[in-house]
């Protein structure tokens, strides 16, 4: 079991990849997911989602979760 990490738009470009796969640890937060997977400083205004819901950096994650990092949305 693991955590799927997704990056979009300028964050995807900065990292040079769109996905990571991460071994889940008990009590792991979204912030720790970023530190473990992205391994660069968090770009200003980065938004996070867990399982396609807007979330926050202190949110705990579980096995099988999908965590995404992206800049403020600019659609419409």
């Amino acid at each position, binding site marked *: 079991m693991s955590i799927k990490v997704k990056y979009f*738009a300028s964050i995807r470009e900065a990292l040079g990849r769109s996905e990571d796969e991460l071994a889940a640890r008990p009590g792991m937060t979204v912030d720790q997911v970023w530190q473990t997977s992205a391994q660069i400083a968090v770009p200003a205004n980065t938004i996070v989602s867990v399982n*396609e819901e807007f979330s926050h950096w202190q949110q705990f994650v579980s096995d099988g979760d999908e965590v995404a990092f992206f800049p*403020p*949305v*600019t*659609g419409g």
Partner: protein
Amino acid sequence: MVIVSEKAFQPWQVLADYESQRAGLQGQIGASAVFVGTMRTVNQGRTIEAMTLEHYPGMTEKYLKLVCSEAGEKWQILDSFVQHRYGRILPDEPIVLVAVWSQHRDSAFKACRYIIDELKTRAPFWKQEQTGEGSHWVEKNT
């Protein structure tokens, strides 16, 4: 109904088709409010040649549906429709279409405005603009 698609669409044709296939609202609709967002060639002083819209498949549809259902809780509406493109977009091409059908105009206007405003802050789309000097990500929605 919510549609997220890569291919270009003609909003008036989409609405004509959608309405002609819809059943069950005969005689009830008194007001239709529609918004179309289109690609301009000038944005924040720069000349834009094309645009690429990235999105988060799955989460996009989920939030578009959520925003439409929120509009239906806030105002008395009969139906709503959203179509949003992703991928490469050229000037004058529609990016998004929002339509709301209601008995009365106040709820139609307010729900339509709510959907496009919320979509712009909560639906995970990102615009990258192409100019003569290369590409840049749009950092803030207007």
